[in-house]
């Protein structure tokens, strides 16, 4: 039974069409990559899943309908969203940013354990924990953002463009961490523009173009395909 | 481009005819006085709506222009003994000039910042008027302004005439390319610039036009009250005007007039409740604000007009 099932998802921003009927699934513990050019609707897809933007179509998670839930309930269900552009709380410390990820949780021990887990994934955050988030480098901020989402102990992590604007060295570290998170059993829906990095870590890939899924398959099956090149450069 | 429809014109004519005819039916000077005040507020509300309703910049200091207009009339009349007729053009002029001066620094601001800047400007003026009492009469204001016309009834007609002029000018401007541009500024300033429109110029000009009529209204009011006081600069006056426009329905200009007439008459008719007067007024206001967020007069008229127009449409369709 898939963890997340999306069927015929349609999203409008006012009059602009962002998604024109997207269907995809994520199995438990799976890392699914969504690729596509700018404006293809990747970010919208994630926002629709976390109920931050209204959408029509079927959205079910662990066999429960997400449709009628407000955004904060979805988090409680176990979907945590690490948004595009990181969206840290700039004037709060790293530790507070992380702890806000666990806002809905009451299990002190569990939270402490998850904090250790995040520090384990990104050791630099332990050193930076009392620093204001806005003083961190882009890569470190991305780590906080991922860590913050993990603090909600998700069974599905939504990751939006974790590699944008980050130095290559840190990018590697982040992708390594993403793989570790998957390996520890958390399913991930990863949206990326950096196709090669995403394909290197994902179990399955969807290619989104103009709000529609145009291709899907394993990275291996898509790697030789011209379709990726098609989607990106139109040639 | 929206045109003024025949139904609108007919309704406006009827309303003005009724307003003009009221004094002929043996009403007392009290009623005429109340109506005169109503008409002054209507001029202020319409001029507020022209600038703020069209460009979307809520001016919380409209009383600045009213006060300047009123005091111009007061000074010319009481201090320098000018013929009261001079008050009207002079008040319009000083208010317009003051709009240019205050408009440049404040119109860059948006939303509540513009509102507050104007509010502060009017309050500063109010304090100054009180402090420099030797010149301005302080808290008591300037008393002994001459009436422009001896008969209260004639004076009421005069103010009504100026309301008509105000409305015709403002409505004509609102329906002209000017209005189109002002409404476009409300929509999006950047797009306006991208369409080659000098946004700063139009904003200042709108404020000046708004101020000219507010100042004129201030002078008319001064010559009705036969007195001006620092309360003409008060924030509460600006807020009352905004409430009137809000109740009337923003951006339509005639709605503002309707709101001004309605609320002024309401205030007066609540006299029967003596000390509960303001309490009831506030309660009614809260109900309107809460349940009719688009206002009362303009939306109601739109609905009535549609209903009136519908049979004719049907007929036309039938003929076709």
């Amino acid at each position, binding site marked *: 039974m898939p963890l997340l099932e999306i069927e015929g998802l349609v999203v409008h921003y006012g009059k602009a069409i962002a998604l024109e009927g997207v269907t995809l699934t994520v199995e438990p513990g799976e890392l699914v990559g969504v690729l596509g050019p700018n404006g293809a609707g990747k970010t919208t897809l994630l926002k629709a899943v976390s109920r931050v933007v209204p959408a029509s179509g079927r959205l079910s998670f662990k066999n429960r309908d997400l449709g009628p839930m407000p955004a904060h309930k979805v988090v409680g269900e176990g979907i945590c969203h690490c948004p595009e552009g990181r969206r840290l709380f700039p004037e709060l410390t790293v530790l507070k940013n992380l702890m806000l990820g666990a806002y809905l949780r009451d299990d002190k021990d569990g939270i402490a354990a998850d904090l250790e887990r995040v520090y384990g994934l990104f050791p630099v955050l332990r050193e930076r924990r009392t620093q204001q988030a806005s003083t961190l480098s882009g890569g470190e901020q991305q780590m906080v953002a991922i860590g913050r989402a993990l603090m909600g102990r998700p069974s599905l992590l939504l990751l939006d463009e974790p590699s944008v604007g980050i130095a290559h060295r840190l990018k590697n570290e982040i992708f390594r961490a993403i793989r570790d998170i998957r390996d520890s059993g958390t399913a991930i829906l990863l949206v990326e523009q950096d196709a090669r990095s995403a394909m290197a870590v994902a179990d399955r890939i969807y290619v989104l173009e103009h709000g529609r899924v145009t291709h899907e398959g394993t990275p291996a099956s898509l790697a030789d395909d011209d379709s990726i090149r098609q989607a990106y450069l139109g040639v | 481009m929206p045109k003024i429809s025949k139904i609108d014109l007919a309704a406006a004519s009827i309303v003005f005819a009724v307003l003009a005819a009221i004094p002929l039916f043996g009403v007392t000077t009290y009623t005429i006085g109340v109506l005169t005040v109503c008409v002054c507020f209507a001029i202020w509300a319409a001029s507020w709506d022209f600038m703020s309703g069209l460009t979307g910049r809520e001016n919380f200091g409209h009383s600045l222009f009213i006060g300047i207009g009123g005091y111009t009339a007061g000074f010319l009349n009481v201090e320098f003994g000018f013929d009261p007729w001079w008050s009207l053009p002079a008040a319009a002029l000083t208010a317009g000039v003051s709009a240019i001066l205050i408009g440049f620094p404040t119109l860059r601001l948006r939303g509540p910042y513009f509102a507050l800047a104007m509010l502060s400007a009017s309050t500063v003026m109010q304090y100054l008027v009180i402090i420099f009492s030797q010149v301005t009469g302080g808290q008591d204001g300037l008393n002994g302004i001459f009436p422009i016309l001896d008969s209260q009834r004639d004076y009421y007609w005069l103010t009504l005439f100026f309301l008509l002029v105000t409305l015709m000018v403002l409505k004509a401007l609102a329906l002209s390319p000017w209005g189109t541009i002002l409404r476009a500024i409300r929509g999006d300033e950047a797009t306006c610039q991208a369409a080659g429109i000098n946004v700063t110029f139009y904003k200042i000009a709108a404020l000046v036009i708004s101020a000219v009529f507010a100042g004129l209204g201030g002078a008319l009011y001064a010559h009705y009250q036969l007195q001006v006081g620092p309360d003409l600069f008060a924030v509460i006056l600006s807020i009352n005007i905004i409430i009137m426009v809000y109740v009337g329905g923003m951006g339509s200009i005639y709605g503002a007039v309707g709101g001004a007439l309605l609320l002024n008459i309401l205030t007066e008719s609540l006299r029967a409740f*003596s000390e509960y007067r303001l309490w009831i007024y506030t309660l009614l206001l809260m109900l309107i604000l809460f349940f009719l967020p688009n206002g009362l007069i303009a939306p109601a008229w739109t609905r009535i007009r549609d209903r009136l127009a519908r049979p004719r449409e049907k007929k036309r369709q039938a003929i076709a």
Partner: protein
Amino acid sequence: MKRRTILGAGLAAALLAGAAPSAFAQADKPILIGVNTALQLQVGRDAVNAVKMAIDEINEKGGVLGRKLEMVTADEGEAATEGPKVGIAAVNKLTGDNKVDVLIGGYDSGVTLAELPHISRAKTIFLGIGSASPAIQAKVKENYDQYKYIFRVNPINSAKQAQGLLDFISGKLAGELGYKKISIIGENAKWVQDMVPMLKKGAIDAGLEVPMAEFFDPQTADFSPIFSKVKENGSQYLLVILSHAASDVFVKQWYDAKVPVPIGGIDVKSQDANFFERVGGKSISEVTTNFVLRAPLTPKTVPWWDKFVKLYGTPPVYTASGAYDAVYIYKEAVERAKTTKTDDVIKALEKTDYVGVRGRVVFDELHEVKDGPGYVNELFVQWQEGGKRVVVWPKELAAGNKMINPPWLQ
């Protein structure tokens, strides 16, 4: 059709009524007294109550010229927020719609001044009971024909109050107490702004040093800078003039900071009988001018005071005595004129010589209530232990009463 007939009949009746001799038509109609005042404020409510009290008394004794008296009220609104607009509409309503025979009222000088041209246009007598600006009665001199309708029963105008104040400064402060240095402060109201320079000059002429003469905004919430400055400049007395400002803030802050300078002057709120109680006794030793208090100023004073308290549960504020007297003054004038015709009543009013609850009321040529010994007096009253009010000036009325200092200066 039917409606037109009724209308026609009504019109005819109205014409007939208008054409009939007025005395005949009015014979059994009540005489209407319009009260224009700020109904939400204590000054307004007490004025209304006092008028009602007087009317009831007169009607019980058969009315005036066989006609009953009746009261109509109209709210002047809150001057601070609504300006004179509501006040003007109020007098227009009373004169235009209710066609009252006389207006009694007024509280805020600004509003009253604004109402004057409208009152005079309506040719209705106005007996002022609350506003103190001399500019009001000055109109009578400026243009008698236009403003002859305007009389002031109460209070004594502020210029005359200033004279009294000067007398207090030179006689009591400089004379009896031998002070050398006083400070003067007043709120930003026109009449105070006119008065303070005059007081300063008068005090200096009386040989006093005046290191400070300042104004403050009626909304001032913190007087500590003033107290501090007064203490620093070594003043021995702080003269204060306020009517719309927060008197309670003033005395509370003075008392709490134990300012080593006694205070006194014109403090309109402090004229209220329950002021001492309202501020928790912190007005102790404050001196303020007053025109009436529960003391045998005239034989009528104490009974009137007690009856008012019995009827309405609160001691009357300063407008009440004026309003009560005004009704009787009007009644007497009508009786002397034997008509309610405005011009005749004005003639009669000008000859008024009536002993009211505050003293003997006589109008001068400005239609201003005469003050001084034998007339209505400006009393300097001090709050003493237990909220007792003691007259400390003028000398002849103080009857040897001692002026006390605040507890921390004793």
